[in-house]
């Protein structure tokens, strides 16, 4: 299986360009966000919208207006709106290049392109951006995109510089169709988990502000209402958690045929277990009086922190069966 250097080169270029475009989109979103009036208006709009979504507003849903009566848009607000839309367009463009980068990498090495940490993070960030774009279609949270793109850009920058690994075939232990199943599930779950992670962090700011309007007075009013954030976090987690469970399950099945046992408390297995338990606790906390809201958001953030820890610390610092980072 020789490596196709040309394709690998194109993949690198696509990846770098995608990162740069996300960065540009990030700037656009920050500009949109910084238009104070606009930001507040967006927050108000989402508050109305969520009343409709929750259906708790009144007896009849059908008769309730979905959009607030359009206030005469100031010129500034119109410009902010345009900039925000351009940000989304740029994000879509970045995503296309991101997909190219991953596909080209796969073609270059003639295998599924998630055999080392560099490729893994490339795929996770791709899923994160894709799920964010999906969330944007369902929830009015566009002006949050900057917060979502920030970790994505940082991750991709670190990935392209510190973690870069030349295209190469993978070692025998990874040559299995389980690589596709297990790692894809882990990638998708991790990427989707990023959405509730970011939403929950925003939730903490926003709910602190709602309790005491003096707190984060400059910044929090521009965030969507706490219940929108809570809902985004919950919906994304409910999707990601079964996927993650599936990934862990497939990991165990694969470990049985690759390493001689289905579960052996290897550092990566242990940390996945911990993350799983934390997310299970998150789901339970939303059904427990006194734990909804802030505490649930905190638990979700802890869950995501454990996922990140699993990716970086366990890959780079500890040694175990999962030491496939390719950073020898």
């Amino acid at each position, binding site marked *: 299986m020789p490596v196709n250097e040309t394709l690998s080169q194109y993949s690198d270029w696509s990846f770098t360009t995608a990162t740069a475009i996300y960065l540009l989109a990030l700037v656009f979103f920050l500009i949109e966000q910084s238009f104070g009036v606009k930001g507040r208006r967006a927050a108000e709009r989402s508050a109305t919208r969520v009343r409709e979504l929750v*259906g*708790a507003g009144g007896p009849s849903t059908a008769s309730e207006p979905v959009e607030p009566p359009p206030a005469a848009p100031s010129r500034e607000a119109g410009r902010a709106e345009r900039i925000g839309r351009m940000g989304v367009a740029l994000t879509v463009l970045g995503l296309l290049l991101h997909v190219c980068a991953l596909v080209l990498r796969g073609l270059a090495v003639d295998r599924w392109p998630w055999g080392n940490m560099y490729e893994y993070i490339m795929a996770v960030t791709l899923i994160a951006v894709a799920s964010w774009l999906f969330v944007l279609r369902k929830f009015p949270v566009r002006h949050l995109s900057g917060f979502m793109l920030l970790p994505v850009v940082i991750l991709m920058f670190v990935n392209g510089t510190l973690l870069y690994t030349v295209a190469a075939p993978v070692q*025998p232990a990874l040559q299995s169709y389980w690589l596709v199943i297990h790692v894809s599930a882990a990638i998708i779950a991790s990427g989707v988990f990023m959405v509730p992670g970011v939403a929950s962090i925003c939730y903490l700011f926003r709910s602190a502000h709602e309790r005491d309007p003096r707190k984060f007075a400059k910044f929090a009013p521009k965030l969507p209402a706490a219940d929108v954030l809570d809902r985004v976090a919950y919906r994304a987690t409910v999707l990601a958690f079964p996927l993650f469970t599936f990934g862990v399950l497939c990991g165990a099945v694969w470990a049985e045929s690759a390493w001689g046992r289905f579960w052996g408390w290897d550092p990566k297995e*242990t940390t996945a277990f911990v993350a799983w*338990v934390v997310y299970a606790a998150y789901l339970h906390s939303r059904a427990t009086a006194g734990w909804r809201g802030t505490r649930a958001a905190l638990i979700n953030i802890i869950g995501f922190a454990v996922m990140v820890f699993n990716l970086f610390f366990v890959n780079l610092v500890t040694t175990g069966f999962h030491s496939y980072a390719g950073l020898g």
Partner: protein
Amino acid sequence: MTSTKTPPKPAYRDSTPRRVVAFGRNTWRGLTSMRTALMLLFLLALAAMPGALLPQRSLNAPKTADYIAAHGWWGTLLDRLQFFDVYSSIWFSAIYLLLMVSLVGCLTPRTRDYVRSMRAKPVLTPRNLSRMPHFLQAPRTASVDEVIEAARARLKGWRIAEREEDGGARTISAERGYLRETGNLLFHFGMLGLIVAFALGKMYSYEGQVIVQANGSEFCNGGIYAYDSFNPGLRVDGTELEPFCVKVNDFSAQYTPENQPVAYLAPIEYQSGADLQNNVWKPYLLEVNSPLRTAGDRVYLLGNGYSPTFTVTYPNGEERTQTIQWATTDPATHLAEGATKFDPPGVTDAVERRTKQLAITGLLAPTPLVQGGVLTSVAPQLDNPMVAVDVLRGDLGLDAGRSQSIFSVDQSMVDDGRLKRVARQNLAVDESITLDDGTKIRFDGVGKWVSLQVSHDPTQVYVLGFAIAMFVGLGASLLIKRRRMWIRVSPADSGEGGTVVQVGGLARTDQAGYGEEFNRIADELISGEKRKK
């Protein structure tokens, strides 16, 4: 949790048994509350964490010992507190046992409720439907019965109950999403089963490692003695291993031009069951990711390495040849290190023998590079291999009763001067060293060894079954939505025929998103027509 409410009790009723019962009941309630389950989940996560951060004895005993030694009293303290055996520690077991109790305590009443609710009919249509979170109303010209007929057809798949009300009105109450609770119970029972099966597996499983020369040598699962190392479960004593034999015919590794391994292949033959009596060997290609499964056990290809062959020709003309595995010290280049030990032939006197034992120790380079007389290896494949050896003569200490590594000599014998170096040389294949007493040592070539692992776990298939049940249950309990829908069709007040249709809806879980769905269904119920989405 037990201190919550102890109402003031009249003294004469405060008998000890009562208090014990009350205490027990309160403890049970506390333990099975959702809040406690939540705390226990956190504790479990927290308690599992040290296992990822500290070396664990069960995974890597030497590293654990090093760690303890390097951390003085702190290491010893952690060891006492079982931080190097987290998953068999008292505290970890205690947490998960409590969680199990909590789980059982919370599943019992829920199962009861579940059975009851599965038999129950959907709740009565509320008198005032417009109070429901979702509500639509419209007049129709069709008759009450026609509308109800169409609604019944539309609500296929929902559990429905029809009722007649005064004044000629008819209603249907419908409910959907019962599988959510089924899924939830399946998930939790699956988890319970998984934990039990996992714990049983720890008792009845074993794992053994053995190195076999890849030259047609055999290994038989006859008992613990056949293994180089053996980790039995608590209830395994090694006397009743399932018999089977494996013969390793060859081994080959394939590398990229950059010396990255891409494939390990070991063609083997095996026999189990009746084949053992009939001496029938079946072929199998053992690879990473594809273990041999036979006799309820699994055989894995774990590692590989090289075994140099040396022939010692003694002054009296007697020859001894040995091929012993050397340990790979650098996985990238397969540079290996080891010790091949010889007893002098025909010497019966123990004292004399102990002056004439030989050990050939040193390095083996599969693809050698010699720089300034120092031998290194530059690639893992065999390409004119070389060894750099020290020949030691004297007392190997084999009679001392201490066990010693097959990969090295007993250094204390060297330090005591009882084992002396008598030669040092680099050898290519077929080259030899002649010692001062005329003994000749020839390097004949290099063979290959593989390390195999045999694993036995009778419960793992149950663990898998429970895990799949958990997964299916989880999917159902998270993704299925419970919805209620009511329709009331009343004759129009005007008395000119025609009806008024009211539809109300309630989402019992996951309210968001029910709005649109409700509107669509309600619209169809009212109009009696199927709408395209």
